[in-house]
């Protein structure tokens, strides 16, 4: 049975339960080795963006929103940051806690209740899976609540001039939609970095909030 559009949470539960740890949150069209490389590639880009916009200090408080199996969370922790990961999938969170430690929490993006403020919020290849615009907006608001006054938000999407849909579980929203929604929370887009990994059309966008 194909769920997805109607019930994204169940869709991701099934996907994390069925696929291997690297393909579940990666690209199903890639092999395990290619997915591993894909994660490493994106992690490098994330680190580069954090260093550029949040500074090179260690010990930044980072929220990995939609962390999946927690590969980015663990990678950033190894770089010396204080990283917390959240995801809607209980299966993925249980796997992450078992393999990477107790730094994970099961929560939806829009319902996340932070107990502290974060210097950096990263949300990698998640938001275009949020099909409902209200939930998408609520998720961004949640990021805004969790981010401190001097913070960086790293999100990925196609950032095309117009939104477009792929299949029944991907909605690529336009750059203007992102700019407008985040601009209400004082986030300003500073940089766009295309993936340049195979034919993947997505880009990293770094939004900064500052006084």
């Amino acid at each position, binding site marked *: 049975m194909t769920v997805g559009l109607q019930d994204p949470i169940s869709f991701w539960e099934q996907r994390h339960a069925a696929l291997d740890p690297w393909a579940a949150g990666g690209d199903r069209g890639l092999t395990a080795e290619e997915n591993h490389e894909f994660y490493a590639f994106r992690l490098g880009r994330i680190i580069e963006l954090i260093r550029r916009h949040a500074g090179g200090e260690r010990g930044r408080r980072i929220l990995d929103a939609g962390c999946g199996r927690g590969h980015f969370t663990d990678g950033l922790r190894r770089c010396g940051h204080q990283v917390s990961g959240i995801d809607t999938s209980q299966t993925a969170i249980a796997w992450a806690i078992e393999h990477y430690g107790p730094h994970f929490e099961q929560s939806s993006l829009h319902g996340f209740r932070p*107990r502290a403020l974060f210097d950096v919020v990263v949300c990698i290849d998640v938001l275009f899976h949020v099909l409902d615009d209200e939930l998408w907006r609520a998720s961004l608001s949640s990021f805004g609540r969790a981010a401190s006054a001097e913070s960086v938000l790293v999100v990925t999407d196609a950032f095309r001039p117009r939104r477009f849909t792929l299949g029944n579980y991907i909605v690529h929203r336009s750059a203007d939609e992102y700019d407008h929604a985040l601009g209400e929370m*004082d986030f300003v887009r500073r940089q766009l970095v295309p993936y340049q990994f195979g034919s993947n059309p997505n880009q990293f966008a770094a939004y900064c*909030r500052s006084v």
Partner: protein
Amino acid sequence: MRIADILFSHAVPGALVVDLTAETAGLSSHAALSPELGLPYRRGLAGASEGAALALVLHSLPARGQDDAPPPDLSGLAGLAQRVAHIVFSDRIEAFLELGILDLATRAGHALSSTHITEHRVFRFAGVFERPEGEPTSSRLRLMSEYRLDKLALGELERALAKATRERDGMKASLVEARAGRERLREEIRGLQADHQQLRVEHRLLGVEYQRMTRARDEALGQAGAAQDQVQAYQARLAATFLALERSRGSFAFRLGRATWAAKSAGVNVFAMPRRWLRGFRGRDEVLEKLRERPRLGGGAPLESPAELVGIEKSVLLLGLEPAAGPGPMIAGVVGSRFAVELAASARFRPLAPHDWRHLLEAELPAYVLVTADGLLPGAAWGDWGTPGGRDGAAMLRELVAWCRGMQLPIVYWDTIGAGQVPPGVRFDAVFAVGAGRAPGGRPTVEVLLPAVEPLVWNPLEVARVCPRHPIFVGAFDRRGDRVELAATEALLGAAAGRGLEIFDVHRGLQGPLASTVRFPDELQALVRRRPPAEAERSAIKRAGILLCGNPSAGPGVPSWDVLRGLAMGVHVVSTPLTLDDPELTQAIELAGDQASAAEALDRLAARPLLDEVWRRGFDRILAGYSLRDRLDRIAERCGVAAVAEPPARLAVIARVQSAAEGRALGGFLAAQTVQSAEVRVLVDAEIEIEIDALLGEGIDSARVEMLRATDPRASGWLGDSAATHVLCWSASTPELADAVAELSRAAALTEVDVLALTPGTGASGAVVYGYGPLPAEAVVAVRRTAVLGHLGEGRPPEDAAAALAAGGTGCLIEAHPAAGRADSNRSVA
């Protein structure tokens, strides 16, 4: 801080308090106090004046577990007053973030202007949101709010840290106090344990005293009963006598005579005589009246009290009792008189008799009580199971065992004669037998304990080494035993009869039906003697030089007591055939199964020297494997008590080497020794280059040689720190006597005197001379370690006799014999 004070601190004249907190929060009662401060209070928005200068709007965030409640509205009350300040109460700081209050306030153009810690039990935190002066950007508003909130969180963390620090310090203090308390408790426990131990000792002593008093009371009651019976008998006899006397003196004839005698004795008076006669006839009998007035028998001096009786008895029984020699644990036992002497040489031993065992055991509790089969033989104090009219020996033995078990005193039985049975009705803690084949009753708990000898009693000292020799037989001719063995014994005695045989009959003088059973054959009767006392018997055997043994084995592969004792005395032993597991012992004795072989063996032994190499090997085997001290310690181990036997004699060689030549000489001396039983300690002067290997002889175990430099801090007193009982102090003048250490070790095991010398010619030194062993014509002298402790404590052995004498101490050295061409400069000093 009180909630009313928070309101007052933010109020201005004309301010209004609007309470929008949840009903269940319990904040309204605090906020309602604001009118006392001049601030109008309104619960809810109804009735709120819109013309107020300031509206202080109170909100409460949902408490933990009430996440469904909506966040407060911070943006919709702008028209309530000219200026609106929102005071938000929360039970935790994180709630401001979880519910996005900062974000809401930023969007409403408010910033967190101040934070407070309230006195409320649940809503401990309060944040005041109001529009700041000017028109700050939303980012600046957010930053201001975060700054205030972080400051509040930091303060809270610092308070929590301070509280944790205080608690930690308190815990540390408690821990220190607890440790001190634990130490006090340990000290108390140690004290209580000491008290407990003391109480156990007292309890044991009281148990002994109680048993003694109980026994004394029983005996006193018995004696009192007997005395009472006697008194009653006397009283009955007295009453009968008095009755007879009264009857006779009250008879008519007696009164008539008494009246007539009284009337006549008063003189002739015709008128008074009839009256006197009549008064004499009718009057009272003075003799009877006087007897009636005397106290009855039994009212005299009271009997002695039971305690006094027991004290008197004990003082009589223990009169002259001396403590067993030595400070160590004692053993007591029911043993034969000859075995008791041997045991007394091996350990602190107290023989028990049926009449005094309880007093002796109460006087000093031994480590264990040993009952041997020879101690229960007929003729012994416990034998015959008592004497006619006396105490029952079997009952006394049972009482002894019961008493020991009651006192938790181990009591064991050793079947030393291979009787194959245990006294009936007696339950010992352990039972031993001399051979596996002679286990008493075949009981599975019986353990094998082979025969053994004590070298202080059975030794070759003063054995006659000159011919002619003649055989001696000590034992019985018991026809109840094995017929083959009896025939072999008869053949052995028959062969020896023409060679000066003496027979010491252990049953000589026995009367009754058993006498004929144990009587020697008629042709030997002329040679039979009564068995002499133990010391005389040993002297006679040593003079004779040949000992005949019949019935030699106590079991398959087990040597008999007689064989071991004969070998230990250094005489030739001829035995009836037996099988021994010990090859050294087998070679040291002669076996004869018939008269011809016995005669041949006796002729051969008559010319064979005593104390030869074959005997020496057998003797060494006896010292090593058949020591009575080992047997006693084995029993002690079985009883779970410490070793009881006296430690065996042990020799140590100590030397001080002051030059390389002396080192080589010491090496030569040690190389001449062929035993490894002695430890060697060498103190070497620091400037001499000598290795320990240069000192070793082939026969010396290197592990037993210790060497220290004189400059070593451990050297002080090191030479005197040996565990040996005897020491041989080597000096440069010591000759290289082969086996000197072995001979001295052997001699030390045979005597208790301090000074030993192995060859004649040492009379000038005052040393005791033991003339056996093939040593050359020099004297080797050793003394007990305690005797030279003064010298050894100074880290040096006595170097010469003159110095030792001058010091007034005792020493030991090698004495050169004049015949060997050495200067007589060294002497034994004791």
